[in-house]
């Protein structure tokens, strides 16, 4: 009898040991728990964590957050969402972050398909979730239909996909203009659209197909939609070369951005690549493409030596010094944590509803730009405001192993004169020059 009881007692003891710590007991005094959620096995998640860590350490070193006269320190909780492969895992990670780990606020998120269920989980518990990764416009349209439920969601970075289209078109226009002038090309330039198959890209593809001819006078010769995880684009690139495209307008956030850029360079496809390639925002891009990614141009948020605001340079320099990498836009968690500090201190409370009201009226200069959220009377409430004077973003081009900012530059209309110190001229790829200047 005793022999049978011993294993049972051992199992019960182990279960108790596992369960008791997670029950947590009493809340720690004067600690604000902030969850940082993202794909932690990828650069995007790492940078979520790095940005948040920098902000939390700076704030704690300076004494913490003043909540109605009492000082609180920040405790960050890291949550791997595994969102690249499983939106279900992402929702579960968010649920655990709030219910088990006790996060009072959450920052992060990357892929739209996973951020939707993450938002649902956070809203179930009225927890403020500051997005620092997903661009889809519809994420901020949830509050239009049900404000009371979705008011706890704000997007700090990036600006939404419609505005990404706007920046991409301006970068494309700039590159096209430089190519026409430099190579003496006549007639409308031809553009191939290469967009990964993902929800966030769908609306952008439709917009490109309409606006590239209408706004830039260029001709769209075709749209290719490979998988976001495709590892071989030889067939797509051969078809694009057959189409006679001068420019390739990209919408790529997945690992497909590496083989695309590598094969584009290795096969010397005579077309310049402009648009969004998240892999090209990373320092490892050059090595991963074996240098064939030269001239790849992508929208971006940070680049070494580019000061978007008075806080950018210090943030970027410190980030590079600590982590030996240039921050991607996901490191906008740095601004998100400071935003929380700002509103908690100004309201003197940790009450979510009060903080939401304060966030709606905030005007904050962050490292990534001036942060003002769109009003509740707009079609995208709580989305970060975009445009000159707010957040503009930049475009970067790989030039001989260095990531250089090339836009905003040469703007017209509302964007005329908008640029930042350190922005250089966009370069026509050698392979394109060679092709169009040969006899």
């Amino acid at each position, binding site marked *: 009898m005793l022999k049978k009881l011993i294993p049972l007692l051992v199992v019960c003891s182990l279960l108790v040991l596992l369960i008791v710590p997670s029950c947590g007991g009493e809340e720690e005094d004067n600690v604000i728990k902030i969850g940082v959620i993202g*794909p932690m*096995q*990828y*650069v995007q998640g790492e940078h979520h964590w790095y940005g948040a860590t920098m902000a939390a350490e700076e704030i704690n070193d300076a004494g913490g957050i003043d909540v109605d006269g009492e000082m609180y320190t920040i405790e960050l909780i890291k949550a791997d969402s595994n969102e*690249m*492969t499983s939106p279900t895992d992402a929702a579960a990670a968010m649920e655990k972050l709030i219910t088990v780990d006790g996060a009072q606020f959450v920052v992060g998120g990357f892929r739209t398909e996973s951020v939707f269920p993450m938002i649902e989980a956070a809203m179930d518990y009225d927890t403020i979730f500051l997005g620092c990764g997903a661009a889809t416009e519809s994420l901020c349209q949830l509050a239009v239909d049900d404000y009371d439920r979705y008011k706890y969601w704000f997007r700090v970075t990036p600006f939404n996909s419609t505005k990404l289209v706007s920046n991409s078109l301006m970068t494309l226009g700039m590159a096209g203009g430089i190519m026409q002038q430099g190579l003496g090309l006549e007639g409308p330039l031809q553009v191939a659209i290469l967009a*990964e*198959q993902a929800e966030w890209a769908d609306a952008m593809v439709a917009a490109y197909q309409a606006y590239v001819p209408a706004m830039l006078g260029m001709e769209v010769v*075709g*749209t*290719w*939609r*490979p*998988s976001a*995880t*495709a*590892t*071989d684009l*030889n*067939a*797509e690139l*051969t*078809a694009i*070369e*057959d189409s006679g495209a001068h420019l390739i307008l990209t919408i790529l956030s997945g*690992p497909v951005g*590496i*083989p695309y850029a*590598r*094969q584009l360079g*290795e*096969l*010397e*496809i005579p077309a310049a690549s402009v648009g969004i390639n998240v*892999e090209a925002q*990373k320092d*490892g891009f050059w*090595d*991963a*493409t*074996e240098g064939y990614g030269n001239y790849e141009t992508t929208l971006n948020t940070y680049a070494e030596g580019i000061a978007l605001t008075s806080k950018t340079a210090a943030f970027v320099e410190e980030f590079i010094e600590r982590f030996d990498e240039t921050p991607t836009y996901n490191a906008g968690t740095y601004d998100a944590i400071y935003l929380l500090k700002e509103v908690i201190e100004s309201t003197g409370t940790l009450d979510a509803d009060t903080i939401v009201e304060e966030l709606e009226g905030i005007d904050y200069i962050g490292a990534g730009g001036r942060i003002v959220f769109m009003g509740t009377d707009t079609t995208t409430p709580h989305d970060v405001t975009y445009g000159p004077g707010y957040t503009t973003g930049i475009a970067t081009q790989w030039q001989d192993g260095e990531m250089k900012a090339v836009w905003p530059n040469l703007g017209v209309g509302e964007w005329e004169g908008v640029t930042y110190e350190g922005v250089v001229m966009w370069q026509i790829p050698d392979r394109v020059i060679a092709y169009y200047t040969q006899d």
Partner: protein
Amino acid sequence: MVEGIIIQGLIKGGTYALLAVGFSLIFGVARMINLAHTCFYMLAAYGIYYFAKELEMPLAAAVVLSLLATTVIGILTYRLFIDRVREHHVTVMLITLAMAMIFQEFMIMAFSSEPLGTPSFVSGYWTIIGVKVSYQNLLTFGIALAVLVCVWALLSKTRLGVAIRATAQDSEIANLMGINVRRILLITMALAAALAAIAGAVVTPTLTLVPTMWTSPLVMIMAIVVLGGLGSVKGSFIGAFIIGFIEVLVVFLLPGGAFLKGAFALLVMVLILLIRPEGLFGVAFEEERL
């Protein structure tokens, strides 16, 4: 456009053939569906990255070491996890799938999930009937053909090949005839792992290294092997080119649906199987093998 379809279809088919033949061989001999097969392809690719980039060894040495290491891992996987349950087909499938997932997680721990690149053996490209093909892709195609010829010669011209074929036809009779079946199965497993590793070595410089890179080709080579007829090396070879051409056709004719190329290839496989359930070169009934 036709030229592009032909050239790219051949290149794609050659790559698939290299992977599918090893998978087909191990099924034909051991009746074993090894879901970790493309994992050896992934391990070889990471091996080359590790030896060439992190240890800064010469590329040729990195390739040789990686092929050897992967083959040894294949042998150990068979001896430690598969051999004792090889008669239980579903168990083998589950164990090999679990092994693949474990290898994948090890790679994530060791190298993270970030995409990595390995240097090409030869850089640049050659224009064939107006279509640019990288030297690395041509090398892959050439090696695929050479390896397939070697496999054919091994199976048809050597005593070991005769023993492998005898085991494939009937392992009990082969055993009675004095063939050490366990040893033959081990050799076949090593050969299959080596073939997957060779595919990894030659294909990787044209692709991106990510720990999940084994999943997509696994689905495609299973489709190829079923299409060609389970266990038929010749069928796998031809099936690889059929699937390769279908994928390329989808990209050229339906560019907006390029992500559907795999789905189209699988659909064609289903249609062919509806007409010929045993696959193109498979046998209709197990008894026909006897």
